[in-house]
């Protein structure tokens, strides 16, 4: 059974139909990159996977539990699904360390001491151990995003969702964030990444998905999608971004 099974997913905002009929399976340990023009629905699709957007129709089954049926406790599913946002969304009133410790301690999953050790370990992993006591506003965008990744990892998620994690960064900081993500992929994390970084998608993704106008137009291994796109719309899009 796939880790995540999405079937017939539809999402509308009032009269605007953003996702029309999405079918997607994410296997354990797989890295999927979602590409597509702005407004194509790729971020909306990602946000449906942890119910930040409520699906209008269809099913999203994670580890055998349908998160769209409102029976289960969505907060419990979310603990296993980390999310990294375009705008980082660090909590500005807490230090870097406290940002990472917040969820494990307030959900009583770790003692304060355990959470602190975990935080320092994770900060070391993203190369920011010396920033543990800094406030988020003292960090560069790239550093903030790496803290955001560490914060998500503190819950030991099985899946990580990335919503255009490098789009708000200055060009010289994109690399440091992508490197952390690459390392994570190599460690076997299941990842779904909405991105405009075609180089990253080509190098790291097991599968690339091209979304346009609310549908998955094309999907396959990166070399196939990038070198031999079958659909006209994929070709057009790739011509514009590559």
């Amino acid at each position: 059974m796939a880790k995540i099974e999405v079937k017939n997913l539809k999402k509308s905002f009032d009269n605007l139909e953003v996702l029309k009929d999405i079918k997607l399976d994410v296997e354990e340990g797989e890295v999927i990159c979602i590409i597509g023009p702005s407004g194509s629905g790729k971020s909306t699709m990602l946000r449906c996977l942890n119910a930040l957007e409520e699906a209008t129709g269809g099913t999203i089954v994670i580890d055998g539990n349908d998160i769209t049926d409102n029976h289960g406790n969505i907060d419990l599913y979310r603990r296993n699904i980390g999310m990294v946002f375009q705008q980082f969304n660090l909590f500005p009133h807490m230090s870097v360390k406290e940002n990472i410790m917040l969820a494990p301690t307030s959900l009583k999953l770790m003692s304060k001491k355990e959470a602190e050790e975990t935080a320092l370990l994770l900060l070391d992993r993203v190369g920011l151990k010396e920033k543990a006591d800094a406030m988020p506003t003292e960090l560069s965008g790239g550093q903030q995003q790496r803290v955001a990744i560490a914060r998500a990892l503190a819950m030991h998620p099985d899946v990580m969702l990335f919503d255009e994690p490098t789009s708000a960064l200055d060009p010289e900081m994109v690399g440091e964030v992508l490197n952390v993500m690459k390392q994570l992929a190599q460690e076997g994390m299941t990842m779904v990444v909405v991105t405009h970084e075609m180089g990253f998608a080509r190098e790291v993704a097991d599968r690339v998905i091209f979304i346009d106008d609310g549908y998955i137009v094309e999907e396959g291994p990166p070399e196939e999608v990038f070198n031999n796109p079958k659909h006209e719309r994929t070709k057009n899009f790739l011509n514009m971004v590559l």
Partner: protein
Amino acid sequence: MSIFELFIQSFPRLMDGLWITLSTTLISLAIAAVLGLTFGLMLVSNSKILRGIAIVYVSIIRGTPIIVQAFFIYFGVPNATGIRLTAVTAGIITLSLNAGAYTAEIVRGGIQSIPKGQMEAARSLGLTKTLAMRKVILPQALRIMLPSIVNQCIITLKDSSILSVIGLAELTQTGRLIIANNFESFKMWIIIAIMYMIPILILTRISKEIERKLKVGQN
């Protein structure tokens, strides 16, 4: 009689009045804080019913003069229910309900001024809505709300003078009673004005200090 002599002569009564003013205001503000937080959270709730109740409450208070509210609670409610309220109780209820409604609006504004991404980030970590509110949204909102809250405290302190109309022996009413005896209305109202100004200036000073500290904490 000089203004100073007048002050010394009326000192005990003025202090009684000031005490009633300050204690009534403080108790009312404490109740208003609870009301404001509760109804403020209801104003941003997903539930239409809760939102509706809060909107009705805020609309009634904002849509009517506080003097009408005071008369309604002191004279109107006992007239209908037979339960007699003392001026102090009626005064505290009036001020609490009044300040509570305005505080609810301050709380709503503060919460809504926090970027949506903060709630989403907290929820994506598995925090319940309540936890996310408590740990992430409200601490940030409070900093933004602080100047408005202090402002509301000042308004409530001054509004307490309106309670003189239901006979509450607070500072303004005390001033009127003293003047009825000595006819020194010019000097007495200056004294009363200064007695309102002092606590308000102290309050303003404290809030500036807290704001400064919060800014340092946030960097």
